[in-house]
C-alpha cells in the first residue's frame, strides 16, 4: 500500500498495527510464568516451614506441611548458634568481608588510577600481570598457600585470611575500574594539577567521587564473595576462632551430623541474612555490578 496519509483506510491500518505492536502480551502468558515461579520458589518455602519445626515434628510430618507453632524457631536459632559457634564465625567472616573487600577495592582503584591517569610507562604490561591473576582456577592456589602459610606461621590466623582475600579480590575490580576511570573526562584532573593538586589529591577528590556507583557495586560483589567462601577458609583457617561462617555451617551438615534438619536449615538461614539484607537494600547496585562483569 502506498504511503498516503490522506487515505483514511491506510491511517486506520497504521493505527491498528501500532496497537498490535504495543499491546501488552495476553494474560495467558502470565499463567506459565506464575507456575514456573512457584515451582522455583519451593526450596524457599521448604526453608521457611522447616525453621519453625522441632526435630520430632520434622520427622513425623510431611516436609512441606505447615508447622504447628512458630515457637520452635527460637530454640532452633539457639541450638544452631551455640553448636556451630556462629557468633565467632560470623564475626570472623564479617571482618574478612568488610576489611578485605574494602581494601581490595581501594588497592584496585589506586592501581587503576596509576594505569589510566598517570603516564605510566608499560601500563598495559602491568595490567596484564594483574589480569593473569584471574586466569587460574582457585584449585591451583590451595596447596601452595597451605605450604607457604605453614612456613610463615600464618595458618589459622586472621592476618593470613585477610591478606589472601584481599589479593583474590583485586583483579576483577581493577578490570572494571580501569574502564570506568578511562571514561572520566581528563580535563578535571588536568585542571586540578594546574591548580597545584598532588596526584594523591586528584585521586581522592576528583576520580573516586566520580566512580562512586562502580565502587559500591564492586565492594558489594567482593563482600558477598568473601562472606560466601568455603574453599579457602576450610583449608587455611578452620579453627573455631578464625573459621568462616560457611565452614561453621558445613560442620553442622552431612553424615556425622546428629542434628535435625530443622537446626541445619536454621543455621543456613542465619548465615544468609547479611548478604540477603545487603541485596534487598542495595539491589540497584547489585544489578549494576552484574553488568560491570560483562563489559
Amino acid at each position, binding site marked *: 500500500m502506498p504511503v498516503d496519509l490522506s487515505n483514511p483506510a491506510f491511517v486506520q491500518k497504521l493505527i491498528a*498495527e501500532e496497537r498490535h*505492536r504495543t499491546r*501488552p502480551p495476553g494474560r495467558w*502468558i502470565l499463567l*506459565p*510464568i506464575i507456575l*514456573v*515461579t512457584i515451582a*522455583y520458589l*519451593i*526450596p524457599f518455602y*521448604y526453608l521457611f516451614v*522447616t525453621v519453625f519445626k522441632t526435630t520430632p515434628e520434622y520427622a513425623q510430618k510431611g*516436609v*512441606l506441611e505447615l508447622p504447628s507453632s512458630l515457637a520452635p524457631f527460637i530454640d532452633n536459632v539457639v541450638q544452631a548458634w551455640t553448636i556451630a559457634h556462629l557468633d565467632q564465625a560470623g564475626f570472623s567472616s564479617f571482618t574478612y568481608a568488610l576489611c578485605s573487600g574494602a581494601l581490595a577495592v581501594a*588497592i584496585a582503584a*589506586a592501581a587503576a588510577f*596509576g594505569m589510566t591517569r*598517570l*603516564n*605510566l*610507562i608499560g601500563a598495559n604490561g*602491568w595490567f596484564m*600481570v594483574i589480569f593473569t*591473576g584471574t586466569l*587460574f*582456577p*582457585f*584449585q*591451583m592456589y*590451595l*596447596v*601452595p*598457600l597451605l*605450604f*607457604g602459610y605453614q612456613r610463615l606461621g600464618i595458618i589459622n590466623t586472621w592476618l593470613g585470611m585477610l*591478606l589472601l582475600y584481599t*589479593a*583474590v579480590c583485586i*583483579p576483577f575490580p581493577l578490570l572494571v575500574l580501569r574502564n570506568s576511570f578511562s571514561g572520566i573526562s581528563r580535563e578535571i584532573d588536568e585542571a586540578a594539577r594546574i591548580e597545584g593538586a598532588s*596526584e594523591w589529591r586528584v585521586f581522592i577528590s576528583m576520580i573516586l567521587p566520580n566512580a562512586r556507583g562502580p565502587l559500591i557495586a564492586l565492594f558489594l560483589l567482593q563482600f558477598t564473595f568473601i*562472606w*560466601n567462601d*568455603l*574453599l579457602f577458609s*576450610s*583449608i587455611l583457617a578452620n579453627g573455631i576462632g578464625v573459621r568462616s561462617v*560457611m565452614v561453621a*555451617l558445613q560442620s553442622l*551438615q*552431612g553424615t556425622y551430623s546428629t542434628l535435625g534438619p530443622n537446626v541445619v*536449615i536454621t543455621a*543456613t538461614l542465619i*548465615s*544468609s541474612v547479611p*548478604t*540477603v539484607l545487603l*541485596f534487598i537494600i542495595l539491589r540497584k547496585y547489585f544489578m549494576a555490578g*552484574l553488568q560491570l562483569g*560483562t563489559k
Partner: protein
Amino acid sequence: MATTASLLLSPDILKDARRRERRVAWRQTRTAWLFIAPAVVMVGVFLLLPVLVNVILSFTKWQKFTGLDKFAGFSNYQRLFAVPYFSEALYNTAFWVVGAIVLPLAVALTLALLLRNIAFQETFKSLYFLPKVLAPTAVGAVWYYVYAPHGVINSIVAGVTGHPFDFGWIYDDNTVTPSVIVTFVWQTVGITMVLLLLGLAAIPKDPIEAARVDGASSGQIFRHIVWPLLLPTVLVVTILNVAAGFTTFDLLWVMASDYPGKRTLSLAVYMYYESFSNGGWAYGSAIAVVLGIMVIAVSAALAWLQSRVEKSIR
C-alpha cells in the same frame, strides 16, 4: 622574527625541553609505581607465586606428615592416568561443563523471552536472582534435604502418584551429578536471565518490525534476527558459566557429602579430596595443574570465538 624562531628551535633548547619532558614523564611513572605497587605485590605474592609453586610441588612427593624431601619426576602425573578415579572425575567434569553451558542458557533464555514484556518484571527478576546472593554452601545444605529420601522431591512425587517414594537422588551413581547440576541451574539461572534480558533490550526494534510486516513468523524472527544479535551476550554468559562448570566445588562437596564415590564427582572435588582428606598434597597439586591447563585452554578458545563473533558483527 627570524631570530626568535631560530632561538626557539635551537638544538640546545630543544634538547633541554625534551629532557624536561622526559623527566616529567619519569616522575609521573615513579608516582604511578606507588599507585600500582600494592596491587602488583599482593597479586604477585598471593596469586601468581602460588601458581608457580604449585607447578613445582606437583613434581615432588610432599605429603601430610612427611617433609618436602625429594623430587619425584612425573610420578604424580603417571599416577593420575593409572587410577580409575581420575578418568571418572574427568568424565564428570566434562558432563558438568556441558551442563553448565547448555542448561542455564536454555532455561534462562526461555524465561527471558517470557518475561520480556511483562508487568512486575523487576519483581520476577529479583526473585530469580536471589539464590545467586546465597552461598553455594547454604544452597547445598538446603538442597541436600530437598533430595533426601524423605525430602521435598520425593514427597511431591509421592503426593502426585499416591505411592510412597524414597529414592536417594544423591546416593545413586546415575542421578548424583544431574541432581547437583539442577541445583546449579536453580542458582545461576537468575543471573543468566538478567544478562540475557539486557542483551535482548539492546536489540533494535526496527528490523524485527520490518520482518513482521513482511510476514515472518516468530520462530523465523528469533532464528534470523534475535539470536545472531544476542550471540555476543550468549558468549559472555557461556564464558562465565564454563569456568563455574570446571571449578564448582562447594555445591558438590556439601550436597554429596554422603555419596561414597564423592572423589570422582569432578576434578575440583578430586583435587580437594586427595589433597586435604587424604593428605596427598603433591598429588593434589598435580591434579590442580591438569585442571588449570584445561580451564585456560577452554577460556582461550572461547575468547578467540568471542573476538571472531564481535568482528563479524561490526
